[in-house]
């Protein structure tokens, strides 16, 4: 099915509703009789709650209820009464052990603070009223008596003796002290080194800022006892699991979670948040639907942030520039609470990628995870892998420069060339051709012409720099058994069900969730490819726990490699059964039935039936013995991958720095990625563009800043610089392809590559222009201008 099958540049089927204003986002949904919630949030980073005065708010117009943390108690299972015990805390689902064997120190994380607030924006009370404005007005009347305590926002200061404590359970604010790799072997490599390159790296804290702010509607049907949660979620089934098994709102069979159209996630909508819990709980308490939607200021204060690492890293080389060893010590800021998957990000999603694309014999990584009085930090586009890539790609670039070796040649010298390749940090790379993507990228950027372009730029008052980033990432985190052994509380497979209707149209129910990725198109392309039916005869159903049995959701670029593989497996079963049906209808042996381009043919004859005829045959069930073949045509599959996938590639950034203002302009960007088999090149290119934009944002513009007292300084789009259209160039995007051997479709995943690759490419370009390495992200004009004053200017600049 060439025109809409695998590899076709098909226009997206979901677009029509979005371009006509007919999308259906959570905040677009209104339930009959719905109330509105507004949260009272702490203005302090750290304080004890002496009392919460709610009387005046309760008496305000339209107010139905005001609840504080102590009100959130469990329902008595058989009635609407409350038990004495509180509902469960929010949890962190990945258990990390410190190197001394102790489990991580997870502090209590109630949906509404009971006695202590631990970051600005922490929930103190919720006001529920007839209208949104009434709830907001009344929230002003809630009087909270705080005993303000000292706070700490900086992770290094949080480790100092005498620092304010975030949770009693975590002495010295240490969540865990974790390590990976062989310390003795790495120390040995450094002893034998000819040259050692050292860097201190700050990976700046970012706010994900999906354009749709978070929202939730809790609904409860007293007749059936069924709760429904409409929520901005990337993984509604995981939300249901946590809300049932841990928070204890309702058993899973009485809780339906619907994630309708979701306006971007980038990780921040993976997690289970306090507001969702409160809306559900209050919906039952008040027997009316309760709606909440965040304004952007609340998003800045309470969405899980990303990155925030401080790292000391060293790379050891022999005299020829062959890498001998890598040593990394990272302090990771976890914020005030451990968010849903936070603990995995600076450990198994980070240190396992520190080998990059390189054959490094010895690696030792230590990671200290630290509580601070700031918003929780969790997975944000790339999650650990951008941080790892930044460490590795900055180190190799600087090492090459220090040793007087061309950075591209240095990389090639050290690339992994034979596959499979076992790194010293768990991962076994299955396939790749790193030189191929690097070479193509160099050609596209005209690497040979860089010197000439630098001279030309200088005449215009600009310093030109070129930077490379040869990144690798691990996607489709799996198999479940392996991630379980690393501490994951869940399996990371995916499910799919393919329902063929009697007329041959198809519904695919998937546990993946689309929030911009275009699954309704790409998943349907797979079906068209297999079944030979047109695109408009395929519907993709996702985001509703009542429709899809279970699923793990969408993050970590897993939906192609894992989600589509599950669909592929289900399609195999459907085709196998349809062949059985066809053999009876065509009165031929099953082994003689061939299925191609939507047609079942008896081999060597002109006897054939098309897809819809066989589908109908399966449902009318007249033409085959029902004791041998069950009527109907519907199959499901759970797919658990055999390995991670390893997308990799090379991005090259060319930038120009204005000598007068320090403003950096990205003038050219080349991305050559190896995502394995590509389903829809148009969508893949879009994913790469968006990823690069977020990476450029991190490198040039975005930085989430807390002051010493833990106040969020960058709390709005006025203060937090998001990439805008005139901050970015057009991107040159190309691919090389090595099909992934670890899944049936050969897919590796593409959603995060840009965000992973880009920061290092851009900072390498800036430092190439500057002629020294002393710059931190975001490389604002002010920082670059200051750095320029330390640069030795080329003669022509005078």
């Amino acid at each position: 099915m060439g025109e809409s099958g695998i590899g076709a540049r098909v226009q997206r089927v979901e677009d029509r509703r979005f371009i006509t204003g007919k999308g259906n986002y959570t905040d677009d949904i209104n339930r009959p009789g719905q109330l509105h919630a507004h949260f009272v949030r702490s203005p302090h980073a750290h304080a004890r709650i002496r009392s919460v005065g709610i009387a005046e708010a309760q008496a305000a117009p339209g107010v139905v209820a005001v609840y504080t943390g102590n009100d959130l108690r469990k329902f008595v299972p058989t009635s609407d009464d409350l038990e004495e015990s509180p509902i469960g805390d929010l949890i962190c689902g990945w258990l990390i052990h410190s190197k001394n064997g102790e489990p991580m120190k997870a502090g209590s994380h109630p949906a509404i603070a009971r006695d202590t607030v631990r970051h600005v924006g922490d929930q103190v009370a919720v006001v529920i009223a007839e209208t949104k404005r009434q709830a907001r007005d009344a929230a002003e009347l809630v009087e909270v008596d705080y005993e303000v305590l000292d706070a700490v926002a900086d992770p290094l200061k949080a480790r100092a003796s005498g620092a304010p404590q975030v949770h009693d359970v975590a002495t010295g604010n240490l969540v865990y002290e974790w390590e990976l790799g062989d310390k003795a072997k790495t120390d040995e490599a450094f002893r034998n080194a000819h040259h050692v390159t050292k860097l201190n790296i700050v990976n700046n804290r970012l706010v994900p800022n999906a354009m749709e702010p978070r929202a939730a509607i809790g609904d409860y049907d007293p007749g059936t006892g069924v709760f429904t949660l409409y929520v901005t979620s990337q993984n509604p089934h995981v939300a249901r699991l946590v809300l049932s098994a841990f928070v204890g709102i309702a058993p899973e069979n009485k809780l339906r979670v619907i994630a309708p159209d979701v306006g971007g996630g980038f990780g921040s909508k993976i997690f289970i948040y306090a507001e969702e819990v409160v809306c559900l709980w209050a919906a039952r308490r008040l027997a009316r639907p309760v709606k909440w939607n965040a304004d952007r200021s609340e998003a800045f204060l309470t969405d899980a942030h990303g990155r925030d690492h401080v790292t000391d890293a060293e790379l050891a080389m022999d005299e020829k520039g062959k890498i001998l060893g890598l040593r990394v010590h990272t302090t990771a800021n976890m914020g005030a609470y451990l968010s849903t998957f936070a603990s995995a990000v600076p450990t198994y999603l980070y240190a396992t990628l520190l080998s990059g694309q390189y054959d490094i014999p010895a690696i030792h990584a230590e990671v200290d995870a630290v509580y601070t009085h700031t918003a929780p930090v969790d997975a944000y586009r790339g999650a650990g892998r951008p941080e790892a890539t930044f460490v590795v790609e900055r180190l190799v670039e600087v090492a090459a420069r220090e040793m007087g070796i061309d950075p591209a040649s240095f990389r090639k010298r050290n690339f992994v060339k034979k596959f499979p390749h076992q790194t010293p940090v768990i991962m076994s790379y299955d396939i790749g051709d790193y030189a191929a993507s690097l070479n193509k990228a160099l050609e596209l950027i005209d690497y040979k012409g860089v010197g000439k372009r630098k001279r030309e730029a200088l005449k215009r008052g600009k310093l030109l720099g070129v930077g490379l980033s040869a990144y690798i990432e691990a996607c489709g985190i799996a198999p479940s058994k392996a991630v379980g052994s690393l501490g994951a509380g869940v399996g990371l497979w995916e499910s799919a069900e393919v329902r063929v209707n009697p007329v041959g149209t198809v519904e695919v129910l998937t546990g993946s969730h689309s929030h911009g990725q275009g699954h309704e198109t790409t998943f349907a392309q797979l079906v068209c490819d297999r079944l030979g039916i047109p695109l408009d005869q395929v519907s993709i159903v996702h985001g509703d726990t009542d429709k899809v049995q279970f699923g793990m959701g969408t993050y970590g670029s897993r939906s192609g490699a894992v989600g589509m593989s599950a669909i592929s497996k289900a399609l195999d079963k459907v085709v196998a059964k349809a062949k059985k049906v066809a053999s009876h209808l065509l009165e031929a042996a099953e082994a003689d039935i061939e299925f191609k381009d939507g047609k079942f043919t008896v081999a060597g004859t002109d006897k054939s039936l098309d897809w819809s005829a066989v589908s109908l045959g399966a449902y009318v069930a007249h033409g085959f013995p029902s004791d041998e073949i069950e009527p109907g045509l519907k199959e499901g599959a759970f797919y658990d991958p055999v390995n991670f996938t390893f997308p990799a590639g090379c991005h090259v950034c060319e930038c120009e720095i204005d000598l007068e203002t320090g403003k950096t302009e990205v003038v050219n960007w080349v991305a050559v990625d190896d995502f394995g088999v590509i389903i829809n090149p148009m969508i893949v290119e879009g994913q790469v563009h968006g990823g690069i934009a977020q990476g450029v944002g991190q490198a040039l513009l975005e930085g989430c800043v807390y002051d010493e007292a833990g106040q969020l300084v960058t709390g709005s789009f006025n203060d937090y610089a998001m990439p805008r259209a005139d901050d970015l160039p057009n991107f040159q995007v190309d691919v090389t392809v090595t099909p992934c051997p670890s899944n049936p479709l050969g897919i590796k995943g593409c959603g995060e590559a840009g965000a992973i690759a880009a920061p290092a490419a851009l900072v390498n370009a800036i430092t190439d222009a500057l002629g020294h390495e002393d710059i931190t992200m975001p490389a604002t004009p002010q920082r670059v201008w200051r750095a320029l004053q330390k640069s030795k200017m080329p003669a022509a600049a005078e």
Partner: protein
Amino acid sequence: MPSITITVNGREVTSEVEPRTLLVEFLREQLRLTGTHVGCDTSQCGACVVHVGGRAVKSCTTLAVQCDQAEVTTIEGLARDGVLHPMQEAFREHHGLQCGYCTPGMIMAAVDIVNRHGMPDEKTVREELDGNLCRCTGYHNIVKAILAAAEKMQGAGQPIAAE
């Protein structure tokens, strides 16, 4: 409460509103025209852009009472008789949207850019988009879509007004 009369997507609506009601709240909550979105609270993101009297405005920073007697067009009113506006077509054709949340505001702003500039160059489009944030696309395909739509709108012999 003051009473206002606004023509929204060609339909006259008279309604009582609290004076502090924002145009976007009026559209979303009172008229249930939920295609216009709210992405921030500082008038920075442009997800709420609609046309008032043929000009793009941010409906999150416009009071509903300011629009009394005005003509307002939202994303829902851009297509005519089921035929998409060239800007809508171009966004789809050039993959100028992913999650779709910024898209209504982007398209409304883009129509206004082309109406004012005729055939803008890429630099102009990028500068003019300064008030519209997209977190998904990196703007690459949005810019491409606007340039392509501008060409079509020129080809149609007149700037195709939304009104």
